[in-house]
């Protein structure tokens, strides 16, 4: 139990503290309560008296923070009567400083710095600092990494930079250097050839790839794509597969005969992980390269579908001619390739795979092998189910989960709010300094509007920082887990989040990003013109008033 003698001391301390936090206009009252404490009989009665008084002062302190202008000091002298600004409101200023410091403390956390970096990504396209495609080209972190890898003769570091470099000649140069240092990295030629299909180095790289991994279908698809692009550029696209040049047909035939198809994404993932760890890369956008769900040349889907169809047609022709063995081989080539692509043939040869199974079933039926016929029929039937499942999976990948979308929205909104609040706070501070014409705290006399706006800006900055941190934190953990343990099970979530985070807030309503950028700058220009008109109007109004006074 508290000794009676202490009760009065506690009462005094309580009131002194309340006076310390009290707004300026109530300090006098606080001292009045303190002086009256000496006349209260009984220590406990004094404590109750102090508690009541402290409560009143605390209430005014809170009100002063929320409504800075509602507690103006009583004007007691003529000098103060004509003073434009009131005295500095300690409590409000303390709250502003506390919020600003707390907001700045967030930046000490690496996760928050990452989050802030992500929240700024939405402005890249709007301000044309760097577009989505040339994002990596001007990435100073990547450039620094490439330079360091070059100096250390680190083949993997060079390969990492080569894969991410969107400048084609530079990407090819880095890749050549990496493979020269470590021939085991020859596979990066395939990854870069898939990304930059117009590279002249591909002609030199393909034989090396075929020699390095002779069983892989990927180099053949790269060759076929190069021919396709050439045809598209020359606007001479053959309608039929048979009209394709022999080189294209040989490439597709070799691809369909290949025992495996490897897009080297597994190797790439491990390389990325090692480099992120080795060079302490914490840019989450570098992870975007890891989640390459297709990993094949863009023309491969079209090429394989067309070629598979031509094989099925050839099989039907052979079957009509009575050459069942030849027909079986054609159908089987399509079926085997479809199985190699994936359990249901992937999205681009699914129909052809189903047709191949159906034809194989029919052929087995004709040959009296009913068990085999039923087996092929069941495989054909399974494809529809697999297609439904895969469609849902692809849709989810493209649309992204609701959680990722919402978190990306919160991150973008928080980033925007942080910039706005920070700007407001800075403007208020600059206004007060400009009006005080000094940097000395004692000479700064912020007005009610400045205090209110400054407090709003500080609270806004703090709240938006906290929101940004909370919304990004799970994704930082996904990144951290991937780098540390190689667990990439949730990398698609991170990629989705980052993909959404790059879209400017409000741009979803527009069909093209360019339209949004155009409307954004039109709105900015209109607002600037309106502001200018307002300033001019006010200037003339003041002049008219001045003339009228004269």
């Amino acid at each position, binding site marked *: 139990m508290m000794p009676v003698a202490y009760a009065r001391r506690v009462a005094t301390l309580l009131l002194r503290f309340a006076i310390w936090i009290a707004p300026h206009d*109530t300090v006098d009252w606080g*001292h*009045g*309560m303190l*002086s*009256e404490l*000496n006349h209260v009989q009984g220590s406990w009665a004094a404590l109750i*008296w102090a508690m*009541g008084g402290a409560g*009143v002062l605390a209430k005014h302190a809170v009100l002063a923070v929320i409504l800075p202008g509602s507690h103006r000091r009583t004007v007691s002298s003529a000098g103060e009567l004509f003073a434009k600004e009131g005295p500095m409101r300690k409590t409000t200023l303390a709250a502003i400083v506390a919020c600003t410091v707390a907001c700045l403390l967030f930046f000490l956390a690496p996760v928050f710095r990452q989050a802030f970096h992500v929240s700024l990504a939405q402005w890249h396209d709007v301000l044309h600092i760097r577009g989505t495609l040339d994002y990596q080209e001007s990435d100073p972190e990547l450039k620094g990494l490439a330079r360091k890898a070059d100096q250390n003769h680190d083949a993997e570091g060079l390969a990492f930079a080569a894969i991410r470099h969107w400048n084609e000649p530079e990407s090819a140069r880095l890749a050549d250097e990496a493979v020269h240092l470590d021939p085991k990295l020859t596979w990066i030629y395939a990854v870069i050839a898939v990304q930059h299909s117009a590279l002249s180095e591909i002609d030199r790289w393909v034989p090396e790839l075929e020699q390095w991994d002779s069983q892989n279908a990927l180099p053949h698809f790269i060759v076929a794509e190069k021919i396709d692009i050439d045809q598209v550029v020359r606007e001479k696209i053959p309608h039929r597969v048979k009209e394709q040049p022999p080189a294209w047909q040989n490439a597709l035939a070799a691809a369909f005969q290949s025992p495996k198809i490897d897009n080297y994404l597994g190797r790439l993932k491990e390389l990325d992980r090692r480099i992120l760890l080795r060079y302490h890369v914490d840019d989450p956008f570098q992870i975007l390269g890891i989640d390459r769900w297709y990993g094949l040349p863009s023309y491969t889907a079209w090429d394989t579908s067309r070629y598979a169809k031509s094989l099925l047609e050839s099989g039907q022709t052979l079957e009509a001619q009575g050459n069942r063995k030849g027909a079986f081989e054609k159908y089987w080539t399509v079926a085997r390739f479809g199985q190699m692509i994936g359990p249901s043939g992937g999205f681009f040869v699914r129909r052809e795979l189903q047709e191949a199974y159906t034809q194989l079933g029919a052929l087995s039926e004709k040959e009296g092998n009913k068990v085999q016929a039923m087996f092929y029929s069941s495989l054909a039937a399974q494809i529809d189910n697999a297609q439904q499942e895969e469609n849902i999976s692809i849709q989810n990948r493209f649309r992204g989960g609701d959680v990722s979308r919402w978190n990306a929205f919160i991150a973008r909104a928080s980033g925007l709010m942080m910039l706005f609040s920070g700007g407001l706070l800075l403007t208020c501070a600059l206004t007060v300094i400009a009006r005080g014409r000094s940097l000395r705290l004692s000479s700064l006399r912020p007005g009610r509007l400045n205090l209110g706006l400054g407090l709003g800006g500080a609270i806004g900055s703090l709240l938006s920082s906290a929101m940004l941190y909370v919304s990004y934190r799970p994704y930082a953990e996904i990144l951290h887990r991937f780098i540390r343990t190689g667990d990439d099970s949730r990398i698609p979530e991170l990629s989705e989040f980052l993909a959404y985070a790059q879209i400017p807030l409000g741009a979803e309503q527009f069909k093209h990003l360019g339209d949004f950028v155009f409307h954004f700058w039109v709105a900015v220009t209109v607002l600037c013109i309106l502001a200018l008109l307002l300033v001019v109007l006010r200037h003339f109004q003041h002049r008219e008033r001045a003339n009228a006074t004269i």
Partner: protein
Amino acid sequence: MSRETGLKSGTLYPILMRLAKFSLLETKWVTTEDGVPPRHTYRLSPKGIELVRSSVVAAPASAKVRRPAFSGGRA
């Protein structure tokens, strides 16, 4: 004043502060004796006295009129 009205400090001071804000109450620091800390004293302003008078007149005659707490004297 607190003893007179039976009001606690948490109730009394907001009333005093509000009255002072509307210039119905005048405040002053007064030193009474040597060594004794000065006391914060309160007195109704002419505007305050006028308001009290008009309130008392407006009150029903049957109502028991208590001695005003701020009767022009010091607290």
